[in-house]
């Protein structure tokens, strides 16, 4: 049983301007654009009192959430049969108001031995989910703080009034604008989903003789989603061209996946030699059916059924893919010292083109446990083993982009009611497979009675004929195209270090550190021509995740206009894409996690998990929208960082002079919106207490424990400032949630 609360992490949420700051900045931008103050759009009027409204949209959309979970499980059995049954109920009222989830689920697992040769395993899981959903888009940060979601009389706001230029007689031209009120949509619309999921599998195995075992497995995964949406005619979502009609949608989707695996295992031990292996066939299919109906034109908001709409429409779609795999494995072990494994696998998928329907995977691996050798004797080293493997993996990754080019028939090609067809992906006959060669080398060493255990793995994956989606010339009728672009190499190291720092009778402290580093390099590109896509560039010798951006040079203290570096490193005030350079990569230098756990008298447990990233860059297009230097200020609230703008000659400002509705190119893609990814997070902290067994036993309880868990507590990034946004606020804009929960675990 567990209950918890969740709330928005104030420290990492994106900070926007408050009403006063917004009005100051908006007026300043407006004057900077040469606007006449008499026609400032957000001037108080009978409909809006902009100067006195102070709306915190985060408060309007977010609240403290609550979760609770109850689990019950029982297990038992005898030699012939074992069972385990569990049931749970979960409820989550989320921090984003208007979202709620309830789930009931049941799992049962049975294992029956008919005799010493025939065994049956049976697993069933069923769950039922009810969701109420609401998404405010980006309104929680982009809505203007000077507009309230309510009118003076408490009803939901539908309009606001602004000045738009002047009438020919010089008087301000007042216009009424629609206000798309998400709060009204949350309260008046329905958006609910009911999901039923069922998963079952049966495995029957039969030991033919001492060496061979035959097993057959069949699994089904069935999901059904029923979704009902109603857009009320009281707000804009249910109004069409000024007429309140109401829209209702009723969607039903069914997904059925099944798979079956037939395997023949063998296992033979001769002295110190052991040979084992498996051959098998796996078949499966994914199928889906989606039917949807929509309706509009309702009598009033009380009738919310598609069938009672004056206009309704429906559609249905189906999808099916099948897959088949042949697999085989052979392994050889000698005296616990030498291990050798050979693998071969062939995968097919109906999505792939006819010529490339199957992909083959081959690999070989070996390991050597040195510490088991006779010649090895050390008091310090307990385990010392080496391992290595090599394999290839072919992949066609074409997805639904058939290399022959595809025409599809759909609604979007209809013309005057006649159903039509159009090209949905262009012909791409030269596309071929990509192949990855995977090399792994590693060792494990454990010292001082396994007090320190280090596992290290080096890998090098080389992919040739790499398939990548590239921007295409629009002349081929598509925006992107799949190409074999060249060869890349990924190499890296992964280290896991487990240390028992203190091990006393009553107290222990353990630390586990994970660290990874990956480096990516393009080894060759066809035609040797660097390729650009979006803000990235592919060039030989660089990472595939290399940014290709104009370098930001800050704000000119003389006039407040933006500056960049040109390709030669000189400052320029003209933005030009010819000045892009490729010198920053997204790959971090090092990333991983650190966890520390403490145990006192086997009664008190404390655990803290931290995650870290060092180095690497991230481009935030979100940051671009909210640091628009006046360009979007009339529609969208802006980052508090915009307060550091240029105002007077000589100002060493971080943000350029804001100009209402005018682009000085300052928001065009540049390193201004590139952030160093270095960060440290406290992911999880837990504390638990186990009650004294003697006490609990006397109450007829086998064990009783309580635990307090907190998730997403804290984030640190460089350049953090209390009243400004830094990388942690700019990642995507959606605020992180902190959860704190208390649980009780009772075992009878």
């Amino acid at each position, binding site marked *: 049983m567990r209950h918890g609360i969740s709330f928005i992490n104030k420290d990492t949420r994106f900070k926007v301007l408050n009403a006063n700051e917004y009005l100051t900045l908006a007026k300043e931008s407006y004057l900077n654009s040469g606007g006449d103050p008499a026609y400032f759009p957000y001037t108080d009027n009978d409909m809006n009192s902009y100067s006195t409204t102070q709306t915190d949209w985060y408060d309007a959309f977010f609240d403290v959430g609550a979760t609770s979970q109850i689990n019950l499980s029982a297990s038992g059995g005898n030699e012939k049969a074992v069972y385990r049954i569990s049931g749970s109920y979960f409820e989550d009222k989320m921090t984003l108001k208007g979202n709620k989830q309830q789930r009931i689920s049941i799992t049962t697992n049975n294992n029956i031995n008919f005799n010493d040769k025939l065994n049956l395993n049976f697993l069933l899981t069923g769950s039922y989910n009810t969701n109420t959903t609401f998404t405010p888009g980006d309104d929680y940060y982009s809505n203007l703080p000077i507009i309230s979601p309510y009118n003076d009389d408490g009803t939901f706001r539908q309009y606001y009034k602004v000045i738009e230029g002047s009438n*020919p007689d010089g008087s301000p031209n007042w216009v009424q604008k629609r206000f798309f009120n998400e709060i009204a949509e949350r309260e008046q619309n329905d958006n609910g989903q009911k999901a039923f999921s069922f998963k079952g599998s049966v495995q029957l195995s039969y030991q033919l003789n001492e060496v061979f075992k035959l097993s057959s497995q069949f699994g089904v995964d069935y999901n059904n989603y029923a979704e009902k949406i109603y857009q009320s005619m009281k707000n804009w979502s249910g109004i069409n*061209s000024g007429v309140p009609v109401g829209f209702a949608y009723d969607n039903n989707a069914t997904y059925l996946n099944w798979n079956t695996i*037939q395997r023949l295992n063998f296992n033979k031990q001769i002295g110190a030699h052991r040979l084992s292996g498996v051959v098998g066939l796996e078949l499966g299919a994914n199928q889906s059916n989606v039917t949807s109906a929509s309706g509009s034109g309702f009598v009033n908001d009380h009738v919310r059924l598609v069938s009672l709409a004056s206009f309704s429409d429906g559609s249905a779609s189906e999808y099916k893919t099948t897959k088949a795999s042949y697999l085989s494995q052979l392994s050889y072990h000698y005296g616990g010292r030498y291990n050798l494994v050979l693998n071969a696998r062939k995968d097919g998928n109906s999505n792939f083109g006819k010529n490339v329907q199957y992909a083959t995977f081959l690999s070989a691996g070996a390991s050597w446990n040195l510490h088991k050798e006779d010649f090895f004797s050390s008091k310090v080293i307990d385990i010392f083993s080496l391992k290595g493997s090599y394999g290839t993996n072919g992949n066609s990754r074409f997805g639904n982009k058939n290399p022959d080019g595809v025409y599809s028939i759909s609604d979007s090609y209809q013309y005057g009611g006649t159903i039509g067809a159009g*090209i949905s992906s*262009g012909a791409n006959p030269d596309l071929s497979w990509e192949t990855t060669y995977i090399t792994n080398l590693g060792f494990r060493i454990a010292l001082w009675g396994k007090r320190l255990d280090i596992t290290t793995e080096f890998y090098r994956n080389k992919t040739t004929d790499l398939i990548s989606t590239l921007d295409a*010339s629009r002349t081929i009728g598509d925006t992107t195209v799949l190409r074999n672009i060249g060869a890349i190499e990924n190499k890296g190291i992964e280290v896991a270090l487990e240390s028992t720092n203190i091990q006393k009778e009553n107290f222990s402290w353990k630390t586990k550190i994970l660290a990874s580093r990956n480096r990516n390099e393009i080894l060759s590109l066809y035609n040797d021509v660097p390729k*650009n896509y979006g803000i990235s560039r592919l060039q030989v010798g660089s990472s595939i995740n290399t940014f290709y951006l104009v370098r930001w040079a800050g704000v000119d203290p003389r006039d407040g206009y933006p500056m960049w570096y040109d390709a030669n490193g000189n400052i320029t005030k003209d933005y030009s894409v010819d000045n892009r350079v490729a010198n920053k990569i997204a790959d971090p230098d090092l990333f991983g996690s650190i966890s520390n756990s403490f145990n006192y008298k086997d009664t008190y447990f404390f655990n803290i998990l931290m995650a870290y990233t060092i180095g690497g860059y991230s481009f935030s297009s979100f940051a671009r929208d909210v640091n628009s230097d006046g360009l979007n200020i009339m529609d969208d609230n802006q980052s508090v960082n915009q307060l550091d703008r240029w105002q007077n000659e000589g100002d060493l400002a971080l943000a350029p002079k804001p100009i209402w509705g005018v682009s000085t190119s300052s928001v065009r*893609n540049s390193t201004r919106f590139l952030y160093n990814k270095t960060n440290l997070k406290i992911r999880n902290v837990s504390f638990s207490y186990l009650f004294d067994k003697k006490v609990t036993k006397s109450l007829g309880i086998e064990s009783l424990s309580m635990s307090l868990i907190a998730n997403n507590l804290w984030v640190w990034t460089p350049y953090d400032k209390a009243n400004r946004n830094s990388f942690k606020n700019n990642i995507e804009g959606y605020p992180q949630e902190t959860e704190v929960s208390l649980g009780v675990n009772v075992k009878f």
Partner: protein
Amino acid sequence: MKKIKTTITILSLSFFTSCSDFLEVDPIGKTTISVFFSDMDGIRAALPGAYSKVYDYYGDEFLLYPDTAGDMLQLATAVENNMISQYNFTSNPAEEITAVGMIWRNALEALVNVNNMLEYQPALLEKFPSNEQELTQIKAEALFLRALIHFDLVRVYAQPYNYTNDASHLGVPVLTKTPSSDDHVPRKTVNEVYQQIEKDLKEAALLFENSDDATSSFYASKNAVHALLARMYLYMENWEQAINYASLVIDSTPLSQGQDYLDMFLKIENDDESLFKLNGNLKTPYINKFYNQETPLAIASTKLTNLLNENTEDIRLDLIDTETLTSLKFLKPFSNIGEIKDNDYHIIVLRASEMYLIRAEAYTELSNIDLAKEDLKILMARNYQTTTAAITLNKNTQEELKTLIDKERSKELCFEGHRLYDITRTQQNLIREANTTSTVKEITYPSTKFVLPIPQKEMDVNKAMIQNDGY
């Protein structure tokens, strides 16, 4: 136990044997290109698909751009408006999802759909000779669409035909078949682009020669081809040919008069003066949002309303909402809840009134003042709801008439995607009214601002592409 063993074995065997065709699943609603065009049904479905793609670019930024960048519109700037940078002449190659990128992308996507039909048509003709008439009709329509798309692209992304003496300045790529993804397609000169347009239209005209008269202007027809030829020759300043083709259309299509004229825009009529229009049934174009009545993103500028108010009887005043000053040309209002109609945002591309204006302009240029005045009087009589005899037109010099025709074109073709091109092909300066909401009040001809830049994404991947001056 034996039984179970046998069952498992049989089960396994049956899976092994059925495996060869297990992966043969036909994707639903999708076919590879060559299979799709292997029978008549494919090309029959590709035709509406191609029209629909042409509609897609017309319905969004393409139709709005020349009016936005002209002097007859006032844009709402305090709200989100896709056309702001064209209005303020701050277009930027990186604008991928508004005018700069979308016109390019969508028009070229339409072109690929058209070219695929033209590529597979000959093979189908060989395979199904009995369908010759139908296939000829399809080819003629496809050729018209190909000419139209090239003409539209060259007007947006290149300076007008008469920008250089021999039209040797950069135009747009000429595509008569779909290039492969390895090709780097260069821009051709404006002259070469017009040559291709002319060639396609002439061929289409020949193919239409034996066809029946079109029943609906929703599809290309002989009239549509002649009308586009007339417009093309006007841009090329080939006055004789402009007169020839305009006359062919005028002789076959009467002007819509009175309420019929208004209904051409306000209602869903089949029989009107339009020569080619795009069917907007069940479409949701951006023009609908742009010219909506509730909170319009653009309204008629005072310059336009003043022009129209020069004669208070002008029927075209009824096509502008008196209160909001928005265009009613694309509005198909919902009458009431009970009778919700499908969206029918039809877009008229070519119509007879324009042919009179083309012919009048060509006559003027050839100093054939009387004939020019005759054409103008016919239009004025319709617009002022009177007879030609009651119209007095005391403009007699070439210059006076040219100014009058420019004004008449502004009034007649407003919101229909002409204004900027009329300014640039007649080499005028753009002069907006004093209280325009745009940051740009005036641009002197010639200017690099009068064309949109080639989108950056195209520049990045296509090594042969050359950017327009000034971007």
